[in-house]
């Protein structure tokens, strides 16, 4: 038996191998943020979607400039339901501007809880599915934060503003990104009062 194979067959070595990694890491490698530490998943995100964590830096800057509130959503059931509502409201903002434009489904990741949601075109809008396992093949991926999504939902931010200030990042083909922005740039715009 080769030496390396022999090494890997030793339970102690396997556990040390994994243990060495995990001892330095928080428990609960895979979770949305409502039931365990998600630092590992968020950290790996920065490799899977390069510079995804720049959203964190951009949001920190926006808080310092008072363009975003500093509050953190409670990591409990109430907090979860608040976020679900925000995501659904966000989806409602993504109205199709015309019948000719055929948007694609996209997946959105809230970076603080590492919560995935998917937005699928349905009728004249989007249907929101929260707590999906991740993007589906071909999905445009949107990475952003809870307060940004909430901001779009309550007309404090537009999708375009969020993208240009770095608090929302898009991952897909160039065409997918262009189309998404063309379609949704003004989503969240506060309508002028009559």
């Amino acid at each position, binding site marked *: 038996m080769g030496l390396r194979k022999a090494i890997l067959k030793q339970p102690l070595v396997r556990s040390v191998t994994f243990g060495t*990694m995990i001892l330095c890491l928080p428990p609960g490698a895979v979770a949305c943020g409502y039931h365990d530490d998600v630092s590992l998943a968020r950290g790996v995100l920065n490799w*899977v979607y390069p510079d995804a964590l720049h959203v964190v830096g951009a949001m920190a800057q926006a808080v310092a400039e008072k363009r975003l509130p500093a509050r953190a959503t409670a990591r409990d059931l109430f907090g979860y339901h608040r976020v679900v509502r925000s995501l659904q409201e966000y989806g409602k903002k993504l109205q199709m501007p015309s019948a000719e434009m055929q948007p694609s489904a996209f997946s959105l990741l809230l970076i603080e809880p590492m919560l995935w949601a998917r937005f699928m075109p349905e009728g004249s809008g989007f249907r929101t599915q929260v707590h999906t396992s991740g993007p589906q093949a071909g999905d445009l991926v949107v990475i952003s934060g809870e307060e940004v999504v909430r901001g779009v939902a309550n007309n404090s931010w537009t999708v375009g503003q969020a993208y240009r200030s770095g608090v929302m990042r898009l991952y897909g083909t160039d065409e997918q990104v262009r189309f998404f922005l063309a379609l949704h740039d003004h989503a969240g715009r506060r309508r002028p009062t009559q």
Partner: protein
Amino acid sequence: MKASSERLVFVGLMTAGFISLASAQDIGSPAKETLDQALPKPAYSPYVDRDFPTRPFFGDTHLHTSFSMDAGAFGARLGPREAYRFARGEQVNSSTGQPVRLSRPLDFLVVADHSDNMGFFPDLFAGKPDLLADPTGRKWNDMIKTGRGGEAAIEIIVAFSHGTFPKDLMYFPGTRAYRGAWQETIAAAEHFNEPGRFTAFIGYEWTSNTNGNNLHRNVIFRDNGDKASQVEPFTVYPPYGSDNPVELWKWMEAYEKKTGGSVLAIAHNGNLSNGTMFPVVEAFGKRLDRDYVEQRAKWERLYETTQTKGTGEAHPALSPNDEFAAFEIWDKGNLDGSVAKKREMLEFEYTRSAYKNGLKLERELGTNPYKFGLVGSSDSHTGLTAMEEDNFFGKTVPQEPNPHRMGATFINNPKTGVKVMDWEVGSSGYAAVWAKENTRASLWDAMQRKETYSTTGTRPIVRFFGGWDFESQDAHNRLPAQIGYTKGVAMGGDLRAAPQGKSPTFLVAALKDPIGANLDRYQIVKGWLDKDGNVHEKIYDVVWSGDRRPGPDGKVPSVGSTVDVANATWTNTIGAPELIKVWTDPEFDPTQPAFYYGRVIEIPTPRWTAYDAKRYGVRPLPGTAMTVTERAYTSPIWYTPAR
């Protein structure tokens, strides 16, 4: 110094010559004026032939980049090259996209990535050929490329835990992939090493963590890549590696024998070792013996006494009379929180008690294994050695500046109750090295002779000399180092066999960080071993700012505070920019071995938590420390009685 020795020799020879002549023929005794005219004078310039360090070099001996498995997993994207650029003073973007720059460049850096699985994360996501050659590696890479990287990451982690990780992907020493990561580490250091301007040391961290007890060491090479590349770092996996420090020392010995080079090891975080860092009876099931103490003393010349995961100089439970002992203490458990701390563990975790126990072990076994000098360093896992309070970029990427980092949890083990909050992570520290020039050889040699001190992130200039003949007026001389090196030994040195009737005298001097806070006081901490084998300690306030007088308890009152926590500001309207004095040990017993080290305390300043609260408008959690008294700890000077 050299000129005065020559002068003495010349005088001696001249005197001998005159005596010889006088015995043959009495020509009278020469007048003083004649001698003065005949003897050579020192050069006009006082600095001619000066041969001692004239400035400390500040650096970090313990930084992690994306090459470390855990740093990469937490999202660190900065590798060794970015780390060096930052340390040299360049502005870079952090892993969370925030621009960052040091207030001033550092003088040196050791990128000390974990030797286990070094380089794995960057290689996996870069699609390195060695990984792609394996079908599973190729599959994972394809998943990453097609947007299924999250799935890939999950598969990787599960494969690790189930033991199904492809053998050809394991980054063991001896594999081409591992060798590649080590060679890139060396190449980066070679590229950024610029003798005279910036030193990039080659190094790594050996990460012994058995049962969650931290016994980590950073290994630092004196050498260039030609020697370092002849070996691969020592890991903890048998048979290539071991979690026992004794085996690390054997690896170091083998390296020196093979290459003719030099390495030293610096341990850290005794506070997270649960009593195993500084053993006095046995280690790894083997009773301490002469070989252990000699080897430890040989290879571990320094100890990292302060860093982000706590400061380990002293503990209030061990030193109840030390009002400054409770500083950035982490004393709840071991590294992963799997075992809670017990009171009886503390003695074997902290620097000062190790120094005291070292005196005992020397009496028993002939060598003091804990006769180490002191450095501070960061242990940052962000690729950024950013340890200034107003510029703190955290220990890991999740702790890079953001509104929520003060309220987050760092370690939480519900089974043991060990919980450490992110606000407890300290913005500390740096190593200060008194070397003659900024080169690998000169800095390393200074570390080897322990002429170093530790700071908690600021850059005060601290001198500490010990001898038998310092006088109070020496403190008025504007060239105290000249006197210090002439009449005594520098920090890290030894005094032996006290001359009859003399007590050790110490010349201490500290200058504030030019852009930092004033100084509160300079203390000397003394520890000694009495004839009954009991150890003792006492802290002396040697010199302090202002006109404060020691109270009835002998302690100098607090300097006060000018910190405005809400605005994260302070003023230098208290304290002093310079402290200098000569001090004589008033309770010296020449028969008792002892150590003395300097501790310099600054006036209070805002802690990083205060800067965060101000910037983000967030309220800290109850109990969050919002101010800090930065400090420096010198390497000791040891006294050994005559035999």
